[in-house]
């Protein structure tokens, strides 16, 4: 009887986990392959990829932040009412009534801010290592869309507390959108759900923030990561030395991954690397990832316990604070808008996004891919670095050096 029960339980366990707790490398590799969550990784990875100074784990950290944001966001939804002025009151509830409400809210806010920064840095890393080069051109495009979605998510989240900061940041933001030629006013009307910021606007931003944009984000992140998996990380090619004997646990396969299997021309052969340069993803990659996740979560908790997410007075459409500032990641834009609304608010950002989207199809070939600041890519890197530095400087100016009337102030005075 006991024996039959044990067999039955074992059957149940096996229906969930196909493989027991793996003991050998081979079992671990098999576990990686047979798990939905783990098979994002290859069974083996190049040592090059493991070097922390190559990727700085920035993509991983953005992913972890997205998960933290989803979890904290879902929790916050249980107390939040997307209707003014209940929205503001539910913020107060989170702050003063709900146990740990303030911590969750802080976590959500600071992770969102961190994500904007980390995603930006991730883009810089990918550029500086030339990682958008073939066969990863399209994944760069997906990445640019993810950057825009990240900004969109942060921006739509901004209105939800319904405080002065929120109200006027959205006023500024949607007015920037209104500068777009031809469709500007319609876009603003659609975003606001009317002519002015009101209950309709709050509901629209809520649905965008909690459903539409996160779903789009999830879809694109899956695509993004899946393609990293198929293409391998850039730089893996560098250590490939096809002349060396390919021996190892897994014999080199001739399998190639084309563009979703649609192209006939093989692009990158995932296995065309030196197996001696590879290690098993479990434990070498997996444990590092868990460590990074742990570090991120610990840092977020510390930050959320120490720094409070701002909550100003309840939104008052008749009283504009001076200065009225957008969220910090738009302050570079606002600084530009300060000089010229159309050029700074619409033309420059549009051109930058377009340039980013077509970049991998203009800067072609694989030279200098997979290394930081490869000398072959000096021109591209200097152009990009200049742009990145300009955007950072504008953001810093908008954040710290602008006071009432958008006049220049010294932050230390």
């Amino acid at each position: 009887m006991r024996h039959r029960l044990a067999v039955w339980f074992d059957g149940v366990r096996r229906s969930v986990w196909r493989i027991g707790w793996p003991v050998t490398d081979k079992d671990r590799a098999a576990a990686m392959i047979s798990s939905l969550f783990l098979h994002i990784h290859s069974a083996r990875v190049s040592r090059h990829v493991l070097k922390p100074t190559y990727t700085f784990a920035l993509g991983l950290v953005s992913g972890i932040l997205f998960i933290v944001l989803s979890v904290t966001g879902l929790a916050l939804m249980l107390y939040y009412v997307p209707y003014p002025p209940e929205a503001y009151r539910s913020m107060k509830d989170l702050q003063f009534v709900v146990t740990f409400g303030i911590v969750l809210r802080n976590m959500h806010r600071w992770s969102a801010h961190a994500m904007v920064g980390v995603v930006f840095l991730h883009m810089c890393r990918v550029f500086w290592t030339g990682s958008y080069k073939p066969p990863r051109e399209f994944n760069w495009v997906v990445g640019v869309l993810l950057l825009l979605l990240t900004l969109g998510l942060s921006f739509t989240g901004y209105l939800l507390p319904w405080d002065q900061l929120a109200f006027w940041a959205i006023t500024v933001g949607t007015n920037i959108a209104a500068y777009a030629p031809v469709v500007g006013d319609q876009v603003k009307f659609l975003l606001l759900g009317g002519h002015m910021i009101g209950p309709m606007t709050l509901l629209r931003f809520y649905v965008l923030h909690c459903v539409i944009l996160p779903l789009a984000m999830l879809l694109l992140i899956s695509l993004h990561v899946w393609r990293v998996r198929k293409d391998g990380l850039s730089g893996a090619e560098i250590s490939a030395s096809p002349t060396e004997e390919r021996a190892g646990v897994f014999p080199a396969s001739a399998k190639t991954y084309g563009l979703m299997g649609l192209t006939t021309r093989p692009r990158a052969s995932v296995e065309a690397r030196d197996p001696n340069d590879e290690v098993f993803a479990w434990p070498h990659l997996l444990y590092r990832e868990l460590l990074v996740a742990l570090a991120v979560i610990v840092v977020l908790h510390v930050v959320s316990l120490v720094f409070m997410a701002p909550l100003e007075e309840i939104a008052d459409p008749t009283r504009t604070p001076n200065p009225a500032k957008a969220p910090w990641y738009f302050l570079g834009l606002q600084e530009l808008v300060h000089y010229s609304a159309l050029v700074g608010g619409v033309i420059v950002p549009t051109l930058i996004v377009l340039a980013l989207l077509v970049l991998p199809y203009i800067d072609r070939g694989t030279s200098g891919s997979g290394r930081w600041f490869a000398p072959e890519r000096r021109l591209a890197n200097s152009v990009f670095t200049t742009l990145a530095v300009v955007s950072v400087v504008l953001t810093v100016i908008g954040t710290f050096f602008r006071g009432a009337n958008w006049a220049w102030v010294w932050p230390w005075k």
Partner: protein
Amino acid sequence: MTTDRPRLLERPDPVRRSMFAIGCIAIGAATAGFLAATLRFFVPNVLYEPSRRFDIGPPSGFPPGAVTFLPDRRLYVFNGTDGFYTISSVCTHLGCNVKRGGPGFACPCHGSQFNENGQVVQGPAPKPLAWYSLSLSPHAHLVVDLDHPVTPEFRLRA
């Protein structure tokens, strides 16, 4: 070509081919229609906001030669020597409330300045402040219509 293939595959029947094309166009048109309908769905037909046309009371409520600010409406109401007119307090730059300062208006947010007619004197604001039409209701109250912008020549004698 191989002979064991059915003839149909070798040379498509023109009738079938055009049916296929018509089918594709129909499906495409239907999809475009659904998309357009969905897009239209996002445009509200009823706005639960204060009416864009509203009564601001009898002209006697606005002393001659004075300027009254209606904060809820974000509107300045003037009673000048030649009649009534209104100027919006919404800065055309990024939507802050402009304040009366000196002869004109100044925006606190990015330093735009407007003259007494709301024309841009300085700053990032790209357009003059909006003027809205005023009319008299049957009860001889002043009525503002935000959907009817007017030029700075506008005056209402009441």
